[in-house]
């Protein structure tokens, strides 16, 4: 096996040291036509791939002035694009700066609070967004994470903006500023206390009046509050609001009220003040459950989606128009379940899982982050043509994300929760098979932080020490794929690592009998499932584990080029 490691190292060196000099091509050609349409900018490639009308030097692009990579700053939008060549940036009228965005003052991020929204962007970007939306900004550099920034976005407090023009007393549910904007800023000396200001007292209500129209703002109150005596009454209608998940009641003036709760359609208190999301009804995943009242808080704690509009995108529901089959108790909107159904299985919104594609291994990660299963069958798993796929369920739709071709990525899956609360997450992650063969001890071989390898029987002489390199070999756990059907690839040399010859020596004894005297272990047949322990089986497994090597069915179940190898009968699988 020592020879195998030497060949492997030689193979890597051969691959990483190609004979052709690499040039930094300012632009590549397309279809090797040096004077045709140009291709990608700033690539290291052989000279013949460089476009004739652009610069080229026999060095790495990083060492050139025109293709040096840095950050391209867009002074209009305030965006910073990294890994951009100087030439490309300047050609597009950007400002090029050396280094990564972290090191450039204009690219420093902060929390941009605009209206009810928040974005973790540069100051220029924040100003640009504010200009686009016509709003004022609050840019906070003390917030240094995106999550913290988004959490800090707080909507302006709203309330009932009562408008009394002497003939009609109506109301608009608005922020204090919006309410002020209805009449403009109060004139000096103008009365600030209306009739309702006196009635409710405190700082929540303010009014601005004139002889014609009296406007009052009642913070935290709804327009349907009976005490405000407006023409806005409670209704049984509901609505969805752009940018929000919940179903809301609306009053007779079309103003938003609290989150839809069928049990409170006629409750004057629920139509009086604003109830927060946490104070509103809780949506149950099980529609058959009937409402239950919490004796302590008085709030309904679990309700079906027909009766409760407290939808939550992250929990898998959002407000949508009711379709046939949906029967909201009131109104025409409902919390729509965003989950998906696939092959008879129900998946929750946001769940991701590994597709059950042909010829792949099932890789399950336990709660401590370790791969649960370690035994893989090289006959049926990671066979030619097989590929890993990740499935994604979002918004009632399933999308399929292929992992990298040639099994350079595998799909790993884990599950949290129990029973109906199960939630799967999956990811395509790199298959770290490349340096398996170079490992000469078990600890390095099975170090899952560094590589995806397995320590298997090599088929060599068994001298009793099972962990010795002579008896074991380190091979990829998830055999990679090769493009063996193409000319000039390394598939043959990689598979060739497993080629071996065992010369068995016989001596003629008295009579006509022959007795094996040397390398007799090569004749040893394995026992048990897969004939483990036999020289021939071990060698075949070693070969198959290296990649798309040896005799294998492909993922569709079709035979390979040759018949199955039988070392003992001398049938060869070579062409």
């Amino acid at each position, binding site marked *: 096996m020592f020879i195998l490691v030497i060949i492997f190292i030689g193979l890597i060196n051969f691959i990483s040291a190609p004979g052709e000099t690499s040039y930094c091509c300012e632009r590549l050609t397309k279809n090797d036509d040096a004077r045709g349409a140009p291709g990608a900018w*700033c690539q290291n490639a052989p000279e013949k791939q460089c476009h004739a009308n652009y610069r080229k030097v026999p060095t790495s692009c990083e060492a050139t002035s025109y293709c040096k990579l840095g950050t391209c700053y867009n002074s209009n939008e305030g965006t910073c694009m*990294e*890994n951009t060549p100087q030439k490309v940036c300047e050609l597009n009228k950007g400002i090029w700066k050396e280094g990564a965005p972290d090191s450039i003052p204009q690219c420093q991020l902060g929390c941009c609070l605009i209206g009810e929204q928040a974005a973790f962007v540069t100051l220029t970007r924040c100003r640009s967004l504010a200009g686009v939306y016509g709003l004022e900004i609050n840019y906070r550099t003390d917030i240094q994470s995106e999550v913290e920034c988004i959490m800090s976005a707080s909507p302006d407090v709203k309330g009932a903006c009562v408008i009394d023009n002497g003939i009609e007393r109506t109301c608009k549910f608005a922020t204090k500023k919006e309410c002020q904007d209805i009449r403009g800023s109060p004139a000096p000396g103008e009365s600030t206390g209306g009739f309702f200001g006196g009635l409710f007292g405190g700082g929540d209500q303010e009014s601005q009046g004139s002889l014609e129209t009296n406007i009052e703002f009642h913070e935290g109150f709804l327009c349907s509050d009976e005490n405000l005596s407006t023409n806005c009454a409670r209704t049984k209608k509901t609505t969805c609001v752009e940018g929000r998940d919940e179903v809301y009641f609306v009053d007779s003036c079309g103003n938003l009220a609290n989150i839809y709760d069928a049990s409170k359609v006629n409750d004057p208190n629920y139509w009086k003040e604003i109830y927060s999301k946490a104070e509103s009804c809780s949506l149950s995943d099980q529609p058959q459950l009937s409402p239950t009242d919490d004796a302590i808080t008085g709030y309904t704690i679990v309700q079906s989606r027909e009766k409760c509009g407290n939808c939550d995108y992250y929990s898998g529901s959002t407000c949508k128009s009711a379709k046939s089959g949906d029967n909201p108790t009131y109104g025409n909107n409902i919390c729509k379940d965003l989950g998906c159904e696939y092959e008879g299985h129900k998946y929750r919104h946001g769940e991701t899982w590994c597709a059950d594609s042909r010829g792949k291994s099932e890789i399950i990660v336990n709660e401590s982050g370790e791969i649960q299963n370690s035994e893989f069958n090289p006959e049926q798993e990671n066979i030619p043509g097989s590929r890993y796929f990740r499935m994604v369920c*979002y918004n009632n739709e399933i999308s399929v994300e292929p992992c990298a071709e040639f099994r350079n990525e595998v799909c790993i899956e884990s599950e949290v929760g129990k029973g109906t609360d199960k939630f799967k997450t999956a990811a395509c992650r790199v298959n770290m098979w490349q340096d398996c063969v170079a490992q000469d001890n078990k600890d390095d071989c099975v170090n899952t932080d560094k590589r995806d390898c397995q320590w298997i029987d090599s088929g060599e002489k068994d001298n009793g020490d099972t962990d010795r390199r002579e008896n074991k070999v380190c091979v990829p756990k998830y055999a990679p794929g090769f493009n063996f059907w193409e000319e000039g690839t390394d598939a043959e040399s990689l598979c060739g690592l497993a080629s071996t010859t065992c010369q068995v020596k016989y001596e003629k004894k008295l009579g006509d009998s022959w007795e094996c005297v040397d390398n007799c272990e090569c004749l040893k047949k394995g026992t048990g499932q897969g004939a483990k322990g036999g020289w021939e089986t071990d060698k075949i497994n070693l070969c198959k584990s290296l990649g798309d090597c040896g005799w294998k069915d492909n993922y569709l179940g079709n035979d390979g080029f040759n018949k199955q190898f039988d070392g003992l009968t001398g049938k060869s699988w070579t062409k």
Partner: protein
Amino acid sequence: MNKEEDKSGQVTMFIIVGVIIIALAVLIYAFYPQIKSTLGFESKNPSEFIQSCLEDEIKNTVGELSLRGGSLEPDFYYLYNNEKVEYLCYTNEDYKTCVMQQPMLKEHIEEEIENQISGKATECFNSMKESYANRGYAVNLRTGKMKVELLPKKVVANFDYSMTLTKGSAENYEKFRVVLNNNLYELVSIATSILNWEAHYGDAETTTYMNYYHDLKVEKLKQSDGTKIYILSDRDSKDKFQFATRSVAWPAGFGG
């Protein structure tokens, strides 16, 4: 006898006249828009005229370049579903992060739309001038600059043109604006963020974006040569933007 013949002749005439009237009515009904336009009694004001004349052109242009990574005729592309999808970040080497190819994407798209619709815009303004002239107006059209902007939820073409219509009194129209409702601004902003992830880490996680933006669908389709096609779409409006990248590609074997 003669009286009877006269009567039957009159009936025949009535029938013929009736048939002609019905035929005319059918023809007018069928060709009303053209007749209306030819006779020059369209009720559209100049802004509406330009909006209706250019909107489809902008819509088609936006639709086409959205499927091609932001360029109508991409220089460097991956052929995906018979569509030339432009590489916005690319490396020809394996294991390495990509080099940005289109760092000012929004501005590039605005320029592409401008170039594509400028011919049609001239046609539309000339057609409007002719239409008003046919209706007896003295038309004075002063041309100026055109600027296309991607804005939240819309694409806007601003024309720094002015037009004076005189027929007795004079009416002055300044700065024409054509608006197309489209989410390209939002999709391009997401694409910009994905490109930075690709250039920095070599990959981008699709679910992160779908968690932040509830109506957004992000698909990532890895191709056999290491190319990734990203398809961003708005679940409600169905607006779409797709582009290609190649970053930290893993070859078959060691790539030798």
